[in-house]
């Protein structure tokens, strides 16, 4: 075993509540929702047509317009968020490539996604059905794969170390950060991006999730009036489903001595990662969040800390009846009495559920909560559920010192990942 410590030295984000780290944090701490009516396609035929869309995003600000046209939206987000993260970490060179001061062969990434370039794939398939095979774009295939984003990010910034995408449905983001951390611990790299990206806002996804009866109703549960932001109300007694969202978040993870040697102050430390499977059902989570419990326990063991050391849990908190109930039970099981002293909030109350990017977005939130001593709230929380009795930081951000924060992510198929961050101390 090695003693290589892994720290966060930069972050970048594109989210439904803002483009960029500052804009996103301002919105999250103000409790502003990014959920609204869908504008990316004509959604009139759908019963539920709200989403967490990234607003005002122009890919050509972040990449060559010709490249941008060939790439899927999830790659656009990934490239944009990575650019911000590299600048934040002091790793951007003058020519738009990674700074020549670090070894690009030892700088890699685990860039997760739930479904990759589904938009491009559907466009191609529509052309195939309507106009025949000869009209399908030769660019479609290499640009629609789940690892197309990680490929393009490597190309655009010249990052030549270990490179892959992980996929574990909605647990992806946590797995990406955990696996990136492990690559550094195992001395496969000095710097790794731990990241997630997703652009799932296509009609077919809405049809699929709609048929699963998984989506939240955009209605004020008290007045009965139409309200897009109210569709996501994690842990509230009236919650009835999640809201599909898009975005990307990138954490620059770096081996501690490598960061210090180039004179960079660590933002926070990644100390734990746990991963488990429910081995239970393709869609429903295991009873009482049993798999989630094992992931949290594994992450605590990996971090070598007791449950009492944790101050804040950024919950998976999707706003589905089952997830929020089981996640609450799992937190109680793992943390015992300390569960009542934890702050637990769901970023998805504001952003919606960005699938494979969610875990990375929420890891960003954990790091910011540590550095700013401010915990963003769970908004739309009005009706306590008698069974769900944790402190969900309702509706208002809270000033609180956070030394250790844990992020939970769970996915269809029974994937669970938990990642733990700690305030950096020498």
């Amino acid at each position, binding site marked *: 075993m090695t003693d290589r410590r892994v720290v966060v030295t930069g972050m970048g984000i594109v989210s439904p509540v803002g483009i960029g780290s500052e804009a996103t944090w301002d919105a999250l701490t103000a409790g502003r929702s990014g959920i609204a009516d869908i504008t990316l396609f004509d959604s009139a035929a759908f019963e539920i047509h709200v989403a967490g869309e990234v607003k005002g995003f122009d890919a050509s600000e972040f990449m060559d317009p010709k490249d941008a046209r060939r790439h899927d939206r999830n790659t656009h987000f990934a490239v944009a968020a990575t650019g911000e993260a590299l600048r934040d970490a002091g790793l951007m060179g003058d020519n738009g490539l990674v700074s020549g001061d670090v070894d690009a062969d030892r700088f890699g990434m685990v860039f997760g996604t739930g479904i990759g370039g589904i938009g491009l794939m559907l466009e191609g398939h529509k052309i195939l*059905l309507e106009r025949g095979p000869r009209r*399908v774009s030769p660019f479609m*295939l290499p640009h629609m794969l789940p*690892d197309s984003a990680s490929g393009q990010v490597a*190309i655009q910034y010249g990052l030549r170390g*270990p490179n*892959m995408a992980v996929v574990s449905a909605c647990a992806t983001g946590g797995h990406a950060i955990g696996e990136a951390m492990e690559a550094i611990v195992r001395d496969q790299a000095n710097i790794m991006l731990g990241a997630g990206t997703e652009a799932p806002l296509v009609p*077919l996804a809405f049809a*699929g999730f709609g*048929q699963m009866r998984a989506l939240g109703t955009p209605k004020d549960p008290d007045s009965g009036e139409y309200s897009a932001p109210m569709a996501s109300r994690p842990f509230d007694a009236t919650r009835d489903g999640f809201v599909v969202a898009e975005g990307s978040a990138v954490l620059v993870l770096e081996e501690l001595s490598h960061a210090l040697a180039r004179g960079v102050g660590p933002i926070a430390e990644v100390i734990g990662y746990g991963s488990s499977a429910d081995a239970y059902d393709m869609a429903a989570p295991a009873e009482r969040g049993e798999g989630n419990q094992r992931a949290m326990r594994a992450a605590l063991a990996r971090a070598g800390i007791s449950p009492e050391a944790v101050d804040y849990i950024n919950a998976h908190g999707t706003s589905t009846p089952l997830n929020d109930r089981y996640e609450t039970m799992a937190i109680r099981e793992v943390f015992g009495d300390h569960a009542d002293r934890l702050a637990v909030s769901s970023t998805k109350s504001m952003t919606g559920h960005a699938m494979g990017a969610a875990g990375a977005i929420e890891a960003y939130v954990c790091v910011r909560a540590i550095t700013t001593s401010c915990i963003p709230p769970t908004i739309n929380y009005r009706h306590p559920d008698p069974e769900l009795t944790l402190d969900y930081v309702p509706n208002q951000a809270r000033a609180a010192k956070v030394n250790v924060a844990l992020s939970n992510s769970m996915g269809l198929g029974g994937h669970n990942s938990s990642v733990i961050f700690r305030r950096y101390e020498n």
Partner: protein
Amino acid sequence: MTRRPPPPRDPARRAVVTGLGAITPIGNDVATFWANLLAGVSGVGPITQFDASAEEVRIAAEVKDFEPRDWIEFKQARRMSRFAQLAVAAARQAIDDSGLEIGDHNRDDIAVVVNTGGGGIGEVAIGQQTFLEQGGRRVSPFMVPMLSPSMAAAQISIQNRIRGPVITSVAACASGVQAFIEAQRMIEHGDVDVVIAGGTESAILPVAFAALSNMGALSKRNHEPEKASRPFEADRDGFVFGEAAAVMVVESAQHAVTRGATILGEIAGGALTGDAFHISAPDPSGYGATLAMQRALRDAHFEMESVDYVVAHGTSTPLNDATETRAIRAAFGAHADRLAVSSNKSMIGHTLGAAGAVSGMVAILAIRDGIVPPTINYEAPDPACDLDYVPNISRHMSVNVAIANGFGFGGQNAVSVLSRYAG
């Protein structure tokens, strides 16, 4: 190459292979696959899974006579995409082959790392057709949980009640090799005792053929399918798209010895690199591939000269095969001329996310049996491809150390080192 070598491995935590499973275009079990591979049998033929008469490319390496119900309860099989069905079947074989018994005593300490390129892309195509023709209400509620690329690993976990980490990574055509690298790391690191590791792909679909053939990536030799995949040969004109799943049981040496399992070989090391060059073409210098081979061998504590056999990526595209040859020469220097280099894709086509897993399995079988399968359809030499490709006829030779190469769209390079386990 100024970095210090990795610290020596803990012998107890070396990653050994104890079971194999495969569903391939030339056999739905390992024994049949291996016999056909050694005999030089091609699995390429006309596409039967859809009407391809309108396509420019009408050939593929399809899995034949696969009956999901032989492996999976009927109702569950119907809710599983074909790529997941193939993987569940291959995993079943591998677990049986290894004699591993899964129970409450160990189910939390077993991981599944089964990778893929496209996952349940077929479900997307079906779902969209339904959506366009019949509307959103007719889309299957099972579409979303069927299509996710993570579902092969998840279904292996569910079907076998395995509750450790379940991970799917996607590195395009490097995915399969990447699974073995990940498995070895997890074992070495002590995360788990056993990893069910491999790759799967099944995407014999109109949209995939249209896209790949419009890229100019596929061989157009429709008139003689079994000759279409000709890696390293002068007249190669692209790859043949195939489907397969290959899965290995990988465990710590200590765990395997303690339970008295037969050890078939060892995953001694591996490495991943990115070209950072182009979204579909390899870096013509082969730098990223060379670096991956060198780093993989350093990771495994082997000299370059100790390698006997290279299971090549060898896709049969003009660019890959010349670049890979160049990269092997750059990595191995003079030793390159003493290597046996062969491409199983000459027989089973390019199975994308499964390809590297098949190659890793081929390396283990070559080590076990002292025989190297050929590159078939090798007729006219290409001056740009001047290694010993084991042309057309399998070769008896002792193999102690082999590497499996997997290079993907977007410049992902993965190399796994497999070796004889000496105890």
